[in-house]
């Protein structure tokens, strides 16, 4: 039983910390979020050069064979600076799905490109009616000749705009909420019949709603077994949730540090407002939430590669529920403690609040995961 990082893990942590310090001042981040792209391709190159984009992939395909702990270390420190590059979408979700379900040929064609920073991915799973249920898939893939024809509407696809390939969940059989009968397809973003509505999200990132209208793909676009994608989706989304939990911890710690400093600086009634007990106790509650979240994030990173599937899923649901709750509390209270300053776009705290708000809803909000945990426990 040990929560300490190894020397290599500490080096990784220091490297991400340095990157964030050098590139993600509040001003630099605000500027970047406001560009057309919403992130920096130069940063992406840097991440590739530092080896981060290959961290979770097996060594056989050119990766570093890192575990969920390495991912958590990176995500936590990126969360600290609200990093905008599509690491989660491309590496954890997209790359994760390909590495998990892909054929040798698919893995060879895609993973090295991802590791090199030459290819970006996005995962289109949600639909307007599905809310947080991964099994609720109405998009269809119909067999046609050697390949398939895709029809449907995918909602809020993070980084769907910049992805070279979109991984789409579609139904090849069964009813719209069946776990069986869901398949994954690799679709080029510029395929005929793909139409996107690109937009910004409140957390400074980019997403798209994507319509698939008679999109023809070959048999080689099928990722994994036809109709058998659900367990793969669940597994990779669990990894994404664990990564997101770590990002939330980093963002909460930063929000707390910023707020704590503000309490020491801001004076009212002739004294720093941090001298007021009512604000001290609020700040302590925010600190405790972040600490509990850190424990849950570390726990889930260590449990993610467990063979016991129920144990893994319970750990993920519990972590997301607790961290979602904490993220809301810390985000909202850090605005409150900043007073009017917290309401301005210019000041950094609001950006932490907004990212923490979206993290709470991504891949299932707090209520969703409490229900999931209860179902798994009964």
């Amino acid at each position, binding site marked *: *039983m*040990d*929560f*300490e*990082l190894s020397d290599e*893990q500490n080096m990784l942590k220091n490297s991400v910390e340095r990157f964030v310090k050098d590139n993600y001042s509040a001003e630099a981040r605000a500027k970047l979020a406001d560009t057309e792209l919403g992130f920096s391709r130069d940063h992406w190159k840097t991440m590739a050069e530092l080896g981060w984009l290959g961290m979770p992939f097996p060594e056989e395909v050119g990766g570093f064979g890192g575990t969920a*702990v390495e991912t958590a270390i990176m995500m936590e420190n990126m969360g600290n600076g609200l990093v905008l590059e599509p690491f989660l979408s491309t590496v954890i979700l997209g790359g994760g799905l390909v590495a998990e379900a892909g054929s040798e040929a698919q893995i060879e064609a895609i993973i090295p490109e991802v590791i090199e920073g030459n290819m970006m991915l996005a995962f289109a799973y949600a639909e307007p009616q599905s809310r947080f249920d991964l099994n609720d898939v109405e998009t269809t893939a119909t067999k046609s000749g050697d390949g398939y024809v895709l029809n449907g509407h995918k909602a809020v696809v993070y980084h769907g705009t910049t992805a070279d390939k979109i991984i789409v969940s579609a139904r090849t059989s069964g009813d719209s909420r069946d776990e069986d009968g869901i398949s994954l397809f690799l679709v080029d973003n510029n395929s005929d019949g793909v139409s996107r509505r690109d937009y910004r999200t409140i957390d400074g990132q980019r997403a798209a709603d994507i319509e698939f209208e008679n999109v023809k793909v070959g048999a080689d676009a099928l990722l994994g077994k036809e109709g058998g994608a659900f367990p793969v989706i669940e597994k990779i989304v669990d990894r994404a949730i664990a990564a997101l939990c770590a990002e939330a911890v980093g963002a909460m710690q930063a929000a707390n540090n910023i707020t*704590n400093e503000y*309490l*020491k600086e801001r004076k009212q009634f002739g004294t720093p407002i*941090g*001298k007021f*007990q009512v*604000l*001290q*106790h609020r*700040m*302590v*509650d925010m*600190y*405790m939430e972040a*600490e*509990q*979240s*850190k*424990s*849950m994030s*570390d*726990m889930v*990173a*260590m*449990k993610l590669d467990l063979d016991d599937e129920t144990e893994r899923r319970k750990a993920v649901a*519990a972590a997301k*529920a*607790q961290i979602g709750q904490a993220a809301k509390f810390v985000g909202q209270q850090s605005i409150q403690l900043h007073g009017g300053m917290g309401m301005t776009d210019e000041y950094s705290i609001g950006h932490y609040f907004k990212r923490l708000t979206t993290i709470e809803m991504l891949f299932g909000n707090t209520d969703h995961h*409490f*229900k999931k*945990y*209860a179902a798994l*426990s*009964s």
Partner: protein
Amino acid sequence: MDLSFSKEDLAFRDEVREFLATSLPADVKDRCDRGLHPTKEGQTRWQKILNEKGWMAPNWPVEYGGTGWTITQKYIAAQEFGYAAAPVATPFGVSMVGPVIYTFGNQEQKDYYLPRILNSDDWWCQGYSEPGSGSDLASLQTKAVRDGDDYIVNGQKIWTSYAHYADMIFCLVRTDSSAKQQEGISFLLIDMKTPGITVKPIIGIDKEHSLNEVFFEDVRVPVANRIGEENKGWTYAKFLLGNERTSIARVGRSKRQVERLKEIAKTERCGGRALSEDPDFINKLTRIEVDLMALEFTELRMLSMIANGKQLSAEPSLLKIKGTEIQQRLTSLLVESLGMYGAPYEAERSYAGRNEAPVGPDYANGPMAEHLYLRAATIYGGSNEIQRNIVSKMVLGL
């Protein structure tokens, strides 16, 4: 990073389980599981069994009778005791005054008191709080005036748990009224049979007698019963309070409470089905379970820091705050789970000697008593508000 316990630790866990399964008396376990106050006889009997096993004082150095357990083993034992409804040793002797004696006491005091604590020959109680000194402990007024080889003690202590059982009391007294508050306090060990001591019961909101007032009227205490130096008592008191805050998370006990709730909810009915199928109940219980999991891993994370040689400041206050909040939510939900049978309540002391079983299902005997008593959990050991002050100052620098 690694969550697994070593082979040795797992073997140790099995040893603790085995010991508890075979050696914990059923009546003692039953009271503890229900959340009822221990009886003096039962608690003493159990502590003597612990002492025989050599497990009475896990936190003491081996030379004084400690177990020599690693920090992980201590954690494992605490978990297992809590989960098995095995009472831990009454804290006043072994956890509070014992460490003060072996750290600051003289050889004679160590030789006399420590073995008696281990063998439960003396039941100790704690003379800290006074009517005017609760969270602001240093303002205490009980006076000790030097008279030859004795001190003459006058004053009053309050909220003294189990003083009516106690053979000995450790007391903070004022020996210099002219000094700054913290600098005029001494730490005395006082025999409860000394003339001039009166114990008056305080009946709690649970209608039970566990709390007392202790009055001192010209009580003669040998100077030899003072710990360390005169007027340095505050240092020793603070040391003791620091000890009190660790292992206060009580995760093992709370896990057992979750299990009890699930058992009760399978039997109780709500809206024509089992309470365990009621969405509101499930939601409340799940939220507690998840918070408890976060607390469990926070405690483990702190343990790992200590094991790796890091110094904690006020982080354990978090364990106290979250741990006690969870304990209270659990007992509150336990009472809720009983439905109307939460209401019938007779204090044990009022029907002692009667043959009747308590009203309602068997599991209804306990939750309300514990629910009431545990309202104190967020007050004692430094109230949760005081704990927040401490974190604010020590960790956040506010």
